[in-house]
């Protein structure tokens, strides 16, 4: 583990400034489960930046923070996980009041299916072949949450991003970094490169899968395992709209469809599910790529939703997870808006 981060976590727990730390740890085999650590000695197994993303950090955080009655929690997570946590707090699934989010310059993650002794063992930020497709085109790879561990451009320091981040550093006696220009330069250059990849990928996707026929094609391999939904930090509903009884088609309707079209696909709600999910979560999508990682059919679903999200968030001038103060677009009523979409 990075020595500065180690020092910070240890001191924060030891001095009682936080009562627990949430961080990935080394588990049995090649697993990296999230752990909620209350005892300093358990930090020995911590792996703050594991090679894979096994569970999206915001999802892990939401599993026990709908209410935060006592003591502060320090959560160490990737920038996309911190952004998802911010979205989940707006959706009232996480109470961020007593939570400090610490992120880092994220190297990206190895695809779950390719990680292992015979495969890729470490993500390399400079080698896209070692990264998940969404990580390759990620422009939000640093500077999210309250604090950020900066490890590039000649820097190795935890930088405060918010007042509560600053407060933590002050209480631990961590001094402010005087010169962060080298790191900023690195981040800007990296962001620029990623942006080019991102735009290029989106253009290619749009060309390949635009229109209804394109969507039918890309989702034809879907086996309805719903893993994309389950692993998505933003899809938090306990019972999804698609699983409700009133979504079921009567047998006669299936037969009718089959007769009209010559044949009809059973599990006929595949496309409705995916389009419905995009409509529900694309405004809060943080492009973490968890859905694509979990898909057993290798559908580029993360890249697709990220592309849709770029368009839907642009309509509302919204950036998912960036600012806790920005209200959710669909929770905001403006008497005058979106005239360009009328008629």
């Amino acid at each position, binding site marked *: 583990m990075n020595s500065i981060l180690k020092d910070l976590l240890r001191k924060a727990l030891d001095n009682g400034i936080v009562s*627990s730390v*949430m961080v990935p*740890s080394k*588990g*049995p*085999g*090649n*697993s990296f*489960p*999230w*752990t*909620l*650590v*209350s*005892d300093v*000695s*358990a930090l020995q*197994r911590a792996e703050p930046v594991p090679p894979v993303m*096994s*569970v999206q950090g915001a*999802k*892990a*955080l939401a*599993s*026990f*923070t*709908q*209410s935060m*009655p006592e003591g502060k929690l320090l959560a160490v997570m990737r920038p996309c996980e911190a952004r998802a946590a911010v979205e989940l707090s707006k959706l009232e699934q996480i109470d961020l009041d007593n939570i400090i989010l610490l992120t880092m310059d994220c190297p990206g993650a190895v695809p*779950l*299916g390719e990680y292992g002794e015979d495969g890729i063992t470490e993500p390399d930020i400079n080698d896209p072949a070692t990264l998940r497709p969404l990580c390759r085109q990620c422009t939000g790879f640093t500077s999210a949450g309250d604090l950020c561990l900066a490890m590039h451009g000649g820097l190795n320091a935890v930088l405060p991003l918010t007042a509560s981040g600053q407060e933590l550093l002050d209480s631990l006696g961590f001094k402010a970094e005087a010169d962060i220009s080298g790191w900023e330069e690195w981040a800007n250059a990296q962001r620029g490169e990623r942006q080019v990849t991102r735009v290029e990928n989106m253009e290619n996707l749009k060309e390949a899968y635009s229109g209804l026929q394109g969507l039918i094609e890309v989702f034809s*391999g879907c*086996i*309805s*395992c*719903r*893993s994309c939904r*389950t*692993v998505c930090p933003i899809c938090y509903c*306990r*019972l999804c709209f698609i*699983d*409700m*009884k009133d979504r*079921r*088609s*009567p*047998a*006669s309707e*299936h*037969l009718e469809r089959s007769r009209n079209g010559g044949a009809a696909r*059973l*599990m*006929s709600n595949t496309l409705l599910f995916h389009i419905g999910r995009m409509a529900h979560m694309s405004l809060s999508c943080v492009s973490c790529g968890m859905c694509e*990682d*979990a*898909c*057993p*059919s*290798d559908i580029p679903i993360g890249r697709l939703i990220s592309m849709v999200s770029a368009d839907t968030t642009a309509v509302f001038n919204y950036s998912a997870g960036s600012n806790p103060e920005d209200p959710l677009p669909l929770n905001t009523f403006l008497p005058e808006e979106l005239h360009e979409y009328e008629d």
Partner: protein
Amino acid sequence: MPVQGARALSDLTITEPLNRPVAALLRPCEIRAFVENVKQTQGNLENIFIISCTCPGVIPASKLLREDREEILKNHSENIRNSCGACLEFVPGQQADMTVLVASDEPHKGTVIYLHTEKAVEIAEKLDSCTLETGKPPAELTSGILEARKKALKDLMRDIPAPGDGLQSLVSLFSACIGCRGCREACPLCSCILCDYETARTLHSPELVRTEAKRKGSIRVPAGTLQFQLGRLMHISPICTSCGQCSDVCPVDIPVADIFIRAANLVQESLDYAPGRDTDDTPPMATYVEKELPSITD
């Protein structure tokens, strides 16, 4: 097997029985799973004419997606799922109306169809260019495959952790689980609209999670990975038809099906229950017998 056939047939018939005859092409494990669906009021057999086959097994989806497709299809029998390799019930039971001979010890010429019902005989009258037989496919046609499968099942039962191996072996087995619940969603028998492990009754409260973290020094979050797997094992093992769909869908290659097949074999033997054999067999968990299972109660 992209979607287990029973799931598709359940999707078709869950709200009402079919009002017109429909022929369904199903593998034997799909038939058995659908029979269990019917018992749980998740489907209806009315007006369904079942065409099945002596099943050669299926290839794991990930293999077909990520490896040399042509090469794998050429060597079909060497590339089938673990669960298919250890499947003893690859010849359809009494629910099928007709069985097409696909898997057999010796290569056979042309299409050979076994007719099991009057309806099948009636339909087959219009078929030419097929060899038609009545009754079940003779056991000797597939006895070699059966022997090989029996050996594979024995190996599977030996190699997968046993209850005596303790909690730690299960923790290790499921440590890489990402909680995607794909195994549950792909399972034709996990038909609950809201899973027990998504309910407020079963989810761990924030207070409990934090208390446990304090007590133990650290805990895994989200909590309940093993609880979910063991719970599903308990709910499904009496009726599991060993189709292997759960392993196929797992993005981190946990041998879920092997674990379920092992448990299902032991549980079904002690309950003297064969899932999918007959719609009239009552599910063991829905049956009360005053005196039973003395071997377990003492």
